[in-house]
């Protein structure tokens, strides 16, 4: 047992509490403590990633390991998949926080902002590490409740309205998830995920199984904003302060939505063919509709929010194909490609969508508008923002040599190998549409003729610029993951966890 695992939750919690206590007394205390906290978490995540080396670990809270085959307390699980998520969460968190140092200076109650920021990170780390259904629900609530407050942080009209919508739909999702957890406890008499799997491996009633799966797909689908459940996302992600939009779009919907969905359907439920079809279909639907809705937007952040729905669709579709291919059993190489492509795209999307929201924040910071029609000609006055956003746009539209190209390519190859020709065609088509609306964004924001006088507009301050440049470098650097030997060490442990579901139960409780 590695004693460092609970620190992923304990460190951000402690610094969140300290910031509220000392934030009013010591000036600038929170601005100093918050980046250090996130940096420490990132280092810890990277350390765990290197020391794990493809194995997985379980941590029994309070030392309650229990008799063999029957876990007693709450288990935390650190394996290839969760450690990658931890790295992404804390990396994007650190960058967004560094960006906030100058972006949030115009808001009041900064100490509360940084405290809530640490709480959202703590919640996400808790969700990703948890091996226990109810514990997962509790930490999910920690992160979403702090995100409700952060979305409405500016207390303007639109922020409050968006936050209310987000809260109602989020509350609905929580209810569905809680009901599902209750029903699972009724059937399996346990809330430990590995033991639930062991209980499901035997006999179960078909109707019950389907009902629970429907509840969980709609619950976590609402959190992840897959298409029929997406109503809250464009409002919440466009109204929030920009670093928070980057956090929400970059990592929150992945950590509390997709990650949990994948974890539950790969490691807790036994695969069924229907569920694979449903997941792949939902993914393809959000992919297409999200991109079509994004074209007609004139608000920069709204455009980016719809594009998030579309890119989330890619990831969900890849995992859905993975389930179907694993069930067919005759083409494991394609399944590995599909799942690996999904994870790779998840990492990439966190990086470039985070960067794009930071770019949008910079535009809003200097111009006080989010409307594309009021921008133009900014490529001269804001060269850094312009260059980084160009790189991110090319990356998200799948232009080589940026990372987005490779992850989309992997997904498309997997689709062709697995003989999902329709899905492959749709993925290519959506990629072209994506290129279309990002060219629109580039043209109207940076290259068109200026509407207003833009000479007075200067480049953004140092912390914001550094964060954007850092993420832009990552956009190029992550292309390295496409090299087989690199992806073998980085992505392979995560893929292994998902394609060998029994592994999860054995590390957890040794069944």
């Amino acid at each position, binding site marked *: 047992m590695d004693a460092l695992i609970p620190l992923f939750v304990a460190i951000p919690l402690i610094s969140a509490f300290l910031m509220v206590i000392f934030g009013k007394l010591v000036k600038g205390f929170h601005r100093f403590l918050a980046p250090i906290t996130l940096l420490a978490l990132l280092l810890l995540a990277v350390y765990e990633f290197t020391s794990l080396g493809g194995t997985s670990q379980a941590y029994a809270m309070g030392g309650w390991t229990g008799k063999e085959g029957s876990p007693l307390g709450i288990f935390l699980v650190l394996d290839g998949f969760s450690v990658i998520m931890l790295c992404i969460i804390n990396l994007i968190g650190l960058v967004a926080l560094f960006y906030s140092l100058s972006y949030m200076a115009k808001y009041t*109650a900064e100490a509360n902002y940084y405290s809530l920021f640490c709480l959202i990170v703590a919640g996400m780390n808790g969700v990703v590490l948890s091996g226990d259904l109810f514990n997962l629900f509790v930490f999910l609530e920690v992160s979403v409740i702090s995100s409700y407050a952060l979305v409405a942080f500016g207390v303007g009209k639109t922020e409050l309205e968006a936050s209310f919508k987000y809260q109602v739909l989020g509350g609905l999702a929580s209810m569905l998830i809680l009901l599902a957890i209750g029903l699972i406890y009724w059937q399996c*008499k346990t809330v430990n995920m590995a033991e639930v799997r062991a209980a499901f491996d035997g006999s179960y009633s078909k109707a019950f199984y389907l009902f629970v799966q429907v509840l969980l797909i709609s619950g976590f689908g609402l959190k992840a904003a897959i298409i029929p459940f997406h109503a809250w996302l464009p409002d919440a992600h466009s109204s929030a302060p920009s670093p928070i939009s980057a956090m929400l779009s970059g990592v929150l919907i992945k950590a509390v939505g997709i990650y949990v969905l994948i974890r539950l359907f790969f490691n807790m439920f036994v695969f069924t063919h229907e569920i694979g079809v449903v997941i792949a279909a939902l993914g393809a639907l959000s992919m297409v509709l999200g991109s079509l809705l994004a074209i007609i937007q004139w608000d920069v952040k709204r455009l980016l929010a719809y594009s998030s729905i579309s890119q989330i669709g890619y990831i969900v579709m890849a995992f859905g194909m993975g389930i179907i291919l694993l069930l067919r059993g005759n083409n494991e190489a394609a399944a590995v490609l599909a799942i690996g492509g999904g994870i790779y795209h998840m990492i990439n999307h966190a990086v470039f969508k985070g960067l794009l929201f930071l770019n949008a924040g910079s535009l809003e910071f200097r111009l006080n508008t989010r409307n594309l029609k009021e921008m133009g000609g900014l490529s001269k006055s804001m060269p850094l923002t312009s260059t980084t956003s160009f790189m991110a746009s090319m990356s998200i539209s799948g232009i080589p040599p940026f990372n987005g190209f490779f992850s989309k390519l992997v997904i498309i190859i997997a689709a062709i190998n697995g003989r999902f020709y329709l899905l492959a065609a749709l993925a290519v088509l959506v990629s072209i549409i994506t290129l279309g609306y990002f060219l629109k964004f580039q043209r109207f924001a940076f290259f068109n003729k200026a509407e207003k006088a833009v000479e007075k507009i200067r480049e953004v301050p140092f912390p914001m610029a550094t964060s954007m440049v850092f993420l832009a470098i990552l956009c190029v650097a992550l292309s390295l993951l496409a090299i087989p030997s690199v992806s073998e060490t980085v992505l392979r442990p995560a893929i292994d966890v998902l394609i060998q579901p029994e592994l999860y139960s054995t590390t957890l409780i040794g069944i």
Partner: protein
Amino acid sequence: MELQISIILGFMIIGAIYALHAKDLLSAVIAMGIVGYGLVICFLLLKAPDLAIVQIVVETITLVIMVAVVLDSTREEEKVPFDRTSLVNTLVAFVVFAGLFYFFLHAIEDLNPLGKHTLGMAESYVIGALEHTGSVNLVTGVLFDFRAYDTLGEAVILYTAALGALTLLRMKGKKTD
């Protein structure tokens, strides 16, 4: 037991429907109180005194907070005009709900009926728990020892809500306005 709880549940459902249709918001909030306090009685019947205490206090505080919000507002819910589209919407909702109800009925068919529950994971929380935790109250033992990590999360949620309320209810959002 099943009969008593069913009767109370019937009252709770009536209270809930009234709360959703009451014209005056204050009466709606108080009708929600019926549901909450009905739940307290159910908890007592189901041998859950801890929950009864927490629920009665939390329900009271929720009512105080909601009444404080509603009290000097207009208090009247604006009527939704009932035209053809809303009729269609209601019908669709009822069909979906009937489907969900039927689905739920089938889903829980094979599960243990009321009172026939067997202990799985919770067996160790009952048998020998006194020696493990030293707490006579088994629920406290679960909350603060076996699953203390959940309780930390729960306390953090309440803390987040307090911090969030404090943040959302400050007068000025930005320094310049």
